[in-house]
């Protein structure tokens, strides 16, 4: 009795999944991205253009040419429809708090822009390498051995938000970021952000330790209610 029901449910789920991927329309999303003025702050054609500090500071928002490799689709769709500040401070500013004024996209636009952004991938982010997991070594590096927590917020013990404010917050980063991107970003910082406020850790952390940090950060998710 149960088995046919399960099969039917699974087939339905598969169909829904297939249908949504067929419906994905990056071209409509690109048109909406341009029509809504997103290009005023974000560029979407890689590779990275920044060569100097001035280049980086001239930007009004993060580059998105590898958004499909960086973000998780579910998170991105929800965020575009209801954006909440990711950075405590305004982009490229150390004095002004993030005003939280990122434009909202209405449902259909949020979905199509998500499809467009998720189509922008980088060959420098190999898939399936990082499995999010509780990782004491990664934690040790993130909080104690290296200064990661000095600039980036995370949820510490007793759900207390700790950490610095100059970088993007990593609270619940496991919902936002593709785990494989976290590792690729640590390993190849110049590919994604040639000029950035965060130190380069290549040559300072081994690949193994970068993997530990990536697994640790990718596991920043809300705790399941018991």
């Amino acid at each position, binding site marked *: 009795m149960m088995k046919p029901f399960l099969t039917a449910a699974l087939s339905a789920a598969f169909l829904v999944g297939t249908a949504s991927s067929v419906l994905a329309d990056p071209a409509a999303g690109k048109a909406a991205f341009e029509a809504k003025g997103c290009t005023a702050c974000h560029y979407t054609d890689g590779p990275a253009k920044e060569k100097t*500090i*001035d280049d*980086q*500071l001239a930007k009004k928002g993060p580059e998105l040419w590898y958004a499909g490799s960086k973000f998780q689709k579910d998170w991105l769709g929800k965020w575009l429809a209801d954006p909440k500040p990711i950075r*405590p*401070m305004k982009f490229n500013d*150390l*004095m002004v708090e993030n005003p939280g004024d990122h434009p909202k996209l209405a449902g259909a636009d949020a979905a199509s822009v998500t499809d467009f952004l998720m189509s922008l991938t980088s060959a420098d982010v190999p898939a399936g390498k990082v499995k999010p997991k509780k990782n004491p070594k990664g934690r040790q590096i993130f909080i*104690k*051995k*290296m*200064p990661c927590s*000095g*600039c980036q917020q995370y949820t510490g013990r007793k759900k207390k938000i*700790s950490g*610095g*404010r*100059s970088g993007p917050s990593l609270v619940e980063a496991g919902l936002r970021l593709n785990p494989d991107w976290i590792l690729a970003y640590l390993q190849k910082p110049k590919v994604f952000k040639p000029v950035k*406020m965060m*130190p*380069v*850790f*290549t*040559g*300072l952390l081994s690949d193994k330790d970068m993997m530990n940090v990536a697994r640790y950060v990718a596991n920043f998710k809300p705790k399941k209610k018991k």
Partner: protein
Amino acid sequence: MKKLLIIAAVTALASQFTAASTEAADSEKVFKFYCAQCHGLTGKGDGPNVTKDFPVSPRNFTNAKEMDKLSDADLKNVIMDGGPSVSKSPMMPPWGKTLTEAEVDGLIKHLRGICKCKGKQG
């Protein structure tokens, strides 16, 4: 001939001056981009990362008395290799893979300008 020599000398001096001020402006830019996150835009140790929970107090570069205890070589070490290389906090990152040696040397000059001190000699 004499006039020509004077003009040449003045031009050379002026271009040196311009080069030095461009260098200083670049160092200030590097300082504000990388260091001010913790040390503050004017170097008082009050960047946006320094909340009441920040585990250490980033150095206040305007404190000439403290800055005078450090030689330029000490500053270079801590910038390149991070706090732990001089038994200080790992919250001070190792910038050796991020900055060029010329940028670090420029930063040291900038810091000496902030503290208005020469630092430990020899």
